[in-house]
């Protein structure tokens, strides 16, 4: 059974997913950061594939992408680092990346490799749903990969339901009209959006991302969904860190308390 499905079967609330960019802060930090996230008590690890033009990301993640690429990170290199990850990592692992590096690698080869090393799901923000259905759904299913779509406050109810029907794993709720890392508090308007989606009673679990950075924002998000995703705030912690293991543990503990 897919590890994402297993997770949500056991845990319905306060699921914490942590995003970081592969090869950041240093090229060989990918696995140590993943281990530290697991040891600290998070529930899902989201590994970003660095890209030169990450248009849905704010300055913090852009910067981490650029640093990782300058270190020589590439998709091939990443697969090399992750080859034996299942010897040490038991959490669900999701790869997040933009479409271009993946289609250059080849979608079929990419998905096959993901299955081989034990990846559970994919978040590809610039893969449109129609394209997914027309071209890639069969491949994702063949290799047991959950495809995670984004929705935003702008997404119409009809479209949310359509996305729910074509998603498995979980739905990534973008908390505001926003690129990552742009906002730090949660407004009443956002809460009414969370409630609106909650009321739709979707079949998929929902995690709220963009703007989640601490215990307070995590608690609010968890109240209206199954949990949250932290990206930019985590990147800032590891960028400054002199001791990844200790700092990651302290940060994640402070969020989940």
């Amino acid at each position, binding site marked *: 059974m897919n590890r994402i499905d297993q997770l949500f079967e056991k845990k319905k609330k306060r699921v914490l997913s942590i995003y970081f960019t592969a090869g950041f802060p240093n090229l060989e930090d990918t696995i140590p950061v993943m281990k530290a996230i697991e040891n600290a008590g998070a529930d899902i690890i989201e590994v970003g594939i660095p*890209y*030169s*033009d990450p*248009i*849905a*990301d*704010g*300055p913090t993640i*852009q910067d981490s992408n*650029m640093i990782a*690429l300058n270190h020589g990170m*590439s*998709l*091939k290199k990443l697969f090399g680092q992750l080859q034996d990850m299942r010897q040490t990592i038991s959490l669900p692992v999701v790869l997040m990346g*933009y*479409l*271009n*590096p*993946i*289609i*250059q*690698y080849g979608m079929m080869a990419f998905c096959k490799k993901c299955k081989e090393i034990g990846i559970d799901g994919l978040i590809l*923000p*610039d*893969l*449109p*749903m*129609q*394209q997914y259905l027309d071209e890639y759904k069969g491949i994702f299913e063949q290799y047991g990969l959950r495809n995670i*779509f*984004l*929705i*935003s406050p*702008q*997404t*119409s109810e009809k*479209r949310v339901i359509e*996305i729910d029907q074509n998603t498995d794993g979980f739905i990534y709720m*973008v908390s505001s*009209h*926003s*690129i990552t890392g*742009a906002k730090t508090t949660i407004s009443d308007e956002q809460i009414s959006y969370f409630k609106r989606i909650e009321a739709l009673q979707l079949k998929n679990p929902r995690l709220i991302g963009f703007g989640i950075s601490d215990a307070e924002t995590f608690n609010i998000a968890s109240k209206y969904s199954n949990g949250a995703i932290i990206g930019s705030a985590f990147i800032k912690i590891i960028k400054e860190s002199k001791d990844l293991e200790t700092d990651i543990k302290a940060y994640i503990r402070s969020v989940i308390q």
Partner: protein
Amino acid sequence: MIKVDEKGFYGKFGGAYIPEMLYPNIEELKENYEQLMASEEFQKEFRSLLKDYVGRPTPLYFATRLSEKYGAKIYLKREDLCHTGAHKVNNTVGQIILAKKLGKKRIIAETGAGQHGVATATVCALMGMECTVFMGALDIQRQRPNVERMKILGAKVVPATSGSQTLKDATNEAMRQWINNPVDTHYIIGSVVGPHPYPEMVARFQSVISEEIKWQLKEKEKTENPDIVIACVGGGSNAAGAFYHYYNIPQVRLVAAEAAGLGVSSGKSAATTALGTPGILHGSKTLLMQTEDGQVVEPHSISAGLDYPGIGPVHAHLFDTGRAEFVAVEDEDAMKAGIELSRLEGIIPAIETAHALHSLQMIEYKKEDIIVINLSGRGDKDLDTYIKWGGY
């Protein structure tokens, strides 16, 4: 047949590869633009502004001395005489009317050389709309006069400091800004790039260029069809406009001049069809300069307007099907061609346009051939670059 399909593809290229956050905006545009553009009210306002504000029709000028020198009948389509100094304004006039009809309050745009930024700032001033233009930090340095023009027109110019700090990065920043402000903002893309329906919409606004060439040439040469149409291609909006009504007339040769920079194999080039492979950039599948790992490569051209690692999907399709001939013109040759036109015809062209002029030396033609070169812009904005180059 060169035609966009309903999913926004020209053959293998095009589409709308956008984050879900932009889906409602793109849908709104897709659902409304064709109907709006076809409406009598829209056409009346668009045509009237093109005539009285932009100064259309622009002349189709028979270049006597250039024709003598090259041994063909060469006409220049004088887009350099448009208000603001280049063809870019044809598109911004169209899109601002569209934005107004969609009830948008704010306009954002990206710019490379600054021509599209100026053309956007201009129409925003005309319509009393708030305007923010994203421009690569490097381009801000090398196109100072255009930056000041945008500011005089009341626009806010925001430097893009990521990546190569040029057009590609300015486009990334504009897209991010749009994601952050999806409801009240319209993004005026300046070229035939981006997610569907932008490439086709921009091409249609620019298609007034070839629409005019047809009747103007008929008056002068008793035929609507030249033997060859030449235009420069960065993203490719002026070329799309000049080619548009000739796409499906096979006897008219289409020539697209790309920027080779310091040479196609120098590592400092922007010749996308020579160096690119299929990939996805700024929301569409097209030819793209990239590494084996799919990272976008930083292009180089002496002309900020051609300094782009991709090409509009329609041009990728024209290349792929062999419908258009592509030539790659080096910096040095373009500069010389710019000086040559200045001396022969008393017209200082934009350096982008100078690439199209040099292609006369790279293609074959006969003495009786009628050649139309799209003179996309004037060289005022490039004086600094001409002065630094100094070969005159």
